[in-house]
């Protein structure tokens, strides 16, 4: 798994291009592009976080919008009560998401496969309807946020500050995720996907590793929600509705499961396409659906694999194969053996 050594240029280039967006938007006199860009970065952050459980651990969480919504409401509710301090909002957001992820994860991780998908979905729906029932905080209609999160030196009022906050957080998270991927924790986490029984036999707690990843993922998604609330100046139950969870999964999948930067490309592709189709027709979903299907079919493994033809494969690893060993032959070339037998 050396691909990141061969693609060192991708991350700096990507973030350089992203850093140019506000300037280009200003030059074009189209401030809307900054808002769109900020939205893309925020969803990219959430997709990056989801990838920790979906891509690395192979756990299909169909309820990550719940954390996005919790982050939004952390800002909305605190701001409604006059607490505009961003640090306080961030602390509450992290604490609430961590606690919810701990409880939800403890229950969900007792199951696997379809069971896990359904239970994460069920929890997300519970929180969705909880938000709908909060009449005090706007209920179904959502909650306007009149005061942006204030972090002392800066506040998140307007698209520009949110854009740069999201850009910085996404960069930091990507770098951390790249390190995590090669770290003992990341290696064990990815191993639990391939072979949980062996991870168990080596003496690690599969449950503990998965739960840690789920909590970290939930918290990071919650922080994305905090940014989203500031961008839209709005907290609404719709942010935690299940289609949002689905969109996040689609972003991760078309970006490439398990690679670190894939989800970012997935989020960019998904939201840019959505925006483009929306500007063409109000029936944009008719175009979006087939496009996602085509991407999923053509670029199996997402962006990571579609780029793989660009780079040369690493030199083949030296394998010592004693020529006398019959067992190898049997394992490696069943077709050849069958041909031999039939000849």
């Amino acid at each position, binding site marked *: 798994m050396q691909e990141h050594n061969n693609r060192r240029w991708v991350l700096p280039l990507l973030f350089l291009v992203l850093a140019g967006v506000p300037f280009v938007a200003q030059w074009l006199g189209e401030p809307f592009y900054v808002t769109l860009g900020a939205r893309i970065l925020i969803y990219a952050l959430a997709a990056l976080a989801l990838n920790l459980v979906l891509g690395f651990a192979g756990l299909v969480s169909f309820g990550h919008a719940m954390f996005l919504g919790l982050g939004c409401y952390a800002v909305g509710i605190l701001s409604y009560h006059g607490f505009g301090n961003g640090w306080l909002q961030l602390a509450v957001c992290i604490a609430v998401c961590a606690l919810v992820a701990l409880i939800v994860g403890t229950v969900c991780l007792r199951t696997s496969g379809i069971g896990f998908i359904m239970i994460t979905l069920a929890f997300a729906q519970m929180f969705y309807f909880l938000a709908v029932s909060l009449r005090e905080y706007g209920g179904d209609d959502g909650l306007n946020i009149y005061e942006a999160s204030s972090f002392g030196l800066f506040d998140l009022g307007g698209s520009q500050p949110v854009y740069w906050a999201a850009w910085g957080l996404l960069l930091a998270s990507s770098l951390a995720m790249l390190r995590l991927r090669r770290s003992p924790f990341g290696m064990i986490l990815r191993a639990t996907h391939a072979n949980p029984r062996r991870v168990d036999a080596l003496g690690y707690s599969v449950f503990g590793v998965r739960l840690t990843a789920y909590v970290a993922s939930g918290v990071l998604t919650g922080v994305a929600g905090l940014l989203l609330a500031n961008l839209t100046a709005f907290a609404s139950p719709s942010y935690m509705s299940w289609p949002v969870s689905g969109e996040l999964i689609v972003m991760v999948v078309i970006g490439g499961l398990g690679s670190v930067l894939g989800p970012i490309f997935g989020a960019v592709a998904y939201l840019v396409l959505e925006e483009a189709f929306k500007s063409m027709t109000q029936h944009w979903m008719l175009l979006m659906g087939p496009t996602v299907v085509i991407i999923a079919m053509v670029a199996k493994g997402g962006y990571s694999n579609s780029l793989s033809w660009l780079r040369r494969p690493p030199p083949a690893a030296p394998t010592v194969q004693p020529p006398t060993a*019959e067992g190898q032959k049997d394992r490696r070339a069943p077709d050849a053996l069958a041909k031999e037998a039939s000849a």
Partner: protein
Amino acid sequence: MNMQTAAAPAGLSTQDLVRRFGGLKATDGVSLDVAPGELHALIGPNGAGKTTLINLLSGELRPDGGSVRLGAADVSRATVQERVAQGMLRSYQVTSVFDSYTVLDNACLAALRKRRRRLSAWTGLRDCADVVDAAKEALRACRLEDVAEAQVDSLAYGQRRQLEIAMALAGEPSVLLLDEPMAGMSAAESAGVIALLQSLKGRYTIVLVEHDMNAVFALADRISVLVYGKIIATGSADQIRNHPDVRRAYLGDDADA
């Protein structure tokens, strides 16, 4: 070979161990006593309950009755993790390694358990020098150092089987549970594993399940014969070879072992 990584071998014993699957008693009152440093082989016909017994020892299965003792401690109710922490490590009959990782990474993940209480999410796995050293030591013992950087799914079958053992070794065991380490190997590969086990003998307590009778008779200090979940005989290679019940139940009357 300098195995500074090895813990002192510990004794392993069971008392009236019982495990049922529905109406079937897969393990039926097994009392086994393996001395520290002993290589104890478990043989028996297919379906005799050998792997079930290994799973009971390793903690993957809980017994319905009886006890397992590791050294002086009763580990009957201990989880797999707790038993690994006390030095009980196993290999699998069906090769169970991490295919998308390199050989060395596989061994590092095995070696890491004893050397780090917390899993770092920041330091690279390969940056833990002591872990890498311990892993390389285990690979060397299993003659895999030449393919350390190869990805596991590019390995030959016999090498994957050897990695299976290397991973158990890298965990610094005091007791090794080896479930058919030679399953599916060619004669040449088997000979390599026999030599490997010979070199490990005495430094670890080893419970070896194996179908290859030549290997068992060459390696084992003592042999227990399992039939329908019961131990029908325990003894040295000669005693087992000449045991009338064993000949009837397992080796077959015409067996001239």
